[in-house]
């Protein structure tokens, strides 16, 4: 009983909602009305085959990526592999680590190829591909716990920044994590790169062999998980401050390394209400980058002044959550 893909406008008449199996996208394009409709038509045509393309190579995409691995053929799958390749010799990673960002990126590309747009985003469950032309910008809100969506930070991305992809990973999310971060949000040049990096950094925020952390082989929860017998995090007891600091520092070290390699722009790491920010480096080589996170995120457990309710709702919508429930 295969359900057909769903393609519809949301009640606001602005946003497009696409859904097929585990893929759920919220899309909005801004610009000339004719351009928007051309872009939406292109999206609809492109979307219907995405899931089948991915599933045709699923065993390969669920296998560990290595230098000598067989390369996948599909357009989305190639982006996935390219996104995880920089990590494949250093850690266990499968192309699935970048699936959400790669789908978002592919769909966004089909829109921008069809029509000139002022700005557009494709939000795939919090992994977001964005397009910004001219002097456009987007405000983004960050959520630490999907089961209790409240913002731990907000930021603005402008066309002048190199950032075109945002992704969040953590053990409370829909995908499994080997680490204990509640949320690691990464900004990168594209969504697939952000997705893979967020996974790797979230895995690094960890306290190995800690008795207060419940870990279960991924296969026990989800029999066909790409993580197989690797033990994924299912519970983290409240930790004392020094342990939170230790775990966050480990994640931050990895994030810094990835930034030095040019894989990410900046990152925010969140564990039990504590946040570490890796700001954008003001290197002259990047195109007049602004301090994305550093400027916009105001968040300590007690220091974060919440935005007003309508603002939060607008931002949660941008993250694909139209109501305050998980």
């Amino acid at each position, binding site marked *: 009983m295969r359900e057909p893909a*769903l393609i519809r406008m949301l009640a606001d008449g602005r946003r497009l909602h696409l859904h097929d199996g*585990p893929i759920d996208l919220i899309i909005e394009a801004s610009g000339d009305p004719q351009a928007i409709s051309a872009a939406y038509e292109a999206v609809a045509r492109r979307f219907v085959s995405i899931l089948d393309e991915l599933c045709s190579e699923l065993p390969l995409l669920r296998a560990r990526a290595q230098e000598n691995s067989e390369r996948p053929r599909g357009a989305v799958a190639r982006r996935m592999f390219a996104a995880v390749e920089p990590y494949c010799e250093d850690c266990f990673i499968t192309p699935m680590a970048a699936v959400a960002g790669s789908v978002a990126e592919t769909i966004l590309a089909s829109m921008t190829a069809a029509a000139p747009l002022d700005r557009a985003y494709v939000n795939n469950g919090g992994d977001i591909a964005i397009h910004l032309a001219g002097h456009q910008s987007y405000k983004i809100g960050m959520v630490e716990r999907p089961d*209790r*969506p409240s*913002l731990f930070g907000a930021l603005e991305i402008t066309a002048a920044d190199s950032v075109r992809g945002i992704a969040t990973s953590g053990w409370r999310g*829909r995908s499994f994590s080997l680490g204990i971060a509640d949320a690691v949000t990464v900004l990168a040049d594209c969504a697939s790169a952000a997705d893979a990096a967020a996974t790797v950094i979230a895995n690094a925020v960890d306290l190995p062999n800690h008795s207060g952390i419940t870990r279960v082989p991924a296969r026990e929860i989800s*029999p066909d998980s790409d993580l197989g017998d690797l033990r994924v995090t299912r519970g983290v007891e*409240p930790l004392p401050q020094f342990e939170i600091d230790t775990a966050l520092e480990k994640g931050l070290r990895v994030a810094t390394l990835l930034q030095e390699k040019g894989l990410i722009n900046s990152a925010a790491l969140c564990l039990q209400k504590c946040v570490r920010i890796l700001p954008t480096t003001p290197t002259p080589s990047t195109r007049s980058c602004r301090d994305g996170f550093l400027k916009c995120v105001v968040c300590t457990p007690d220091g974060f002044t919440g935005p007003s*309710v309508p603002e939060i709702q607008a931002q949660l919508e941008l993250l694909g959550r139209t109501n305050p429930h*998980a």
Partner: protein
Amino acid sequence: MPDVFPPDTVRCDACPVLCYIKRGHAGACDRYANVEGQLVRVDPHILLDRAKSQGTPLVPFLEREGDWDGKIMKGQETFVTAIGAGTTYPDYKPAPFIVSSEVEGVDMVTVVTEGIFSYCGVKLKIDTDRHLGPERNLVRAEGEPVGHVTTAEYGSQMLSLGGVHHLTGGSKSEGRVTCETLLDLCNGKEVELTIDDGASVRVAAGKPPVVNGQREERMRVGCGSATIGMFAKQWFGKVDDVVVVDDHITGVLSEHQAGKLLGVRATGIAIQGRRSTPGRYFQVAEPGTGWGGTNISDPLTILKPFKAKFAWPHLRLLMVSTTGEHFAYYELDEALRPVEKELPEALIESVGRIRENCEPALATVLFMGGAGGSLRAGVTENPVKLTDSVKRKLTRVTCGGAPAYIWPGGGITFMVDVTRMPENAFGYVPTPALVAPIEFTLKKEDYAVLGGHVDYVRPLGDVLKEKERQRQLTSHAQNPWPLKPHVESSES
């Protein structure tokens, strides 16, 4: 690909990913889950199905194009709750869903919205006789004050948690922890609370409370004195004296008014502690986890020696706790010393009956909030008319389909038992404030009269067609059907 699965694993064929889903888990999409070995669709916006038989709460998702019409025919059997509906707060805009349906020939309208409640809290009733802490003392979660101990009720200790002063009147951390505590309690999750100069409790709505690490199983049938009153007649003639051991009031049959009325002969029994009135003793021992909430493990320790002036050899004595969990039967020997014997057949029933009459001890959570300002604006252009309509019982208020008790007086201040609401019905915003579902149901003609947003009323069938964001649940067995017309009053 995996080769061996636990027996209840299902393979989902809703999309080409073909997930294997273990019992109690969801697939990669989070939309299909394995519930009791069945593939079930689980989605955000909750509809309540009025099922004829009360079975599993989740209804399998079966709507195909073919049988869709049938669903609309049964439209009056479905009620749209506000859970996941969203809110238009703080705009002066119509509520997210204003749904009409015809029920028993009457056109009804339900205004469905989620409310953001800064003025809200939880009344927590903990069935235990244990002293949790002095009245008015602070109740804390994660060290932050989130409420206080309020007036105890019969057999239960009461905590009042939340409220605007803890949510927004204290430090940011106090507000955040209060909000999380309320949210978890309302969503049925376990919360640990400590009371200043008192106990630490772990509570979850509808579950037995855990006090200082010890799970409460049963409420006592009454205090020791009340137990004597209830069972005196059943004991009369079968035993010469009964002591019901209780940390609050230990009762003695032969001295108690109930015993006197039956003509029970005085036994001269002497009990430790402070005598209150005849047959009623305070402080027979220290509080503890032994007999009847005392620290007693051997009940004879509260008895002083029997005197020859009153007592007699072979005198039959039953000692029992207020829950019937502990009991012992003695007969006096020639030297008037109690000797433990097997409980006679004739007394077994009465001890069993004490046990039967002890209800399970629970922690229960009532959410209490005030539907104010702009929430009412989502219902009508003239908010005070909604208040008036609710007061006159023309409008029924429900929370996620559960009946709400409306406190008399001004405003719409309501209470609801969170266990009668669907799971995870509550959310929050970082203001901090709780988000709770609220539905107002009234006759369509009354809705027009009170200045309702009649242009925004949509037939139920239209709402049901947006099925991809809906979740259907079976209505809670004890809840009256929210759409039933000619409502006399909300359940209270």
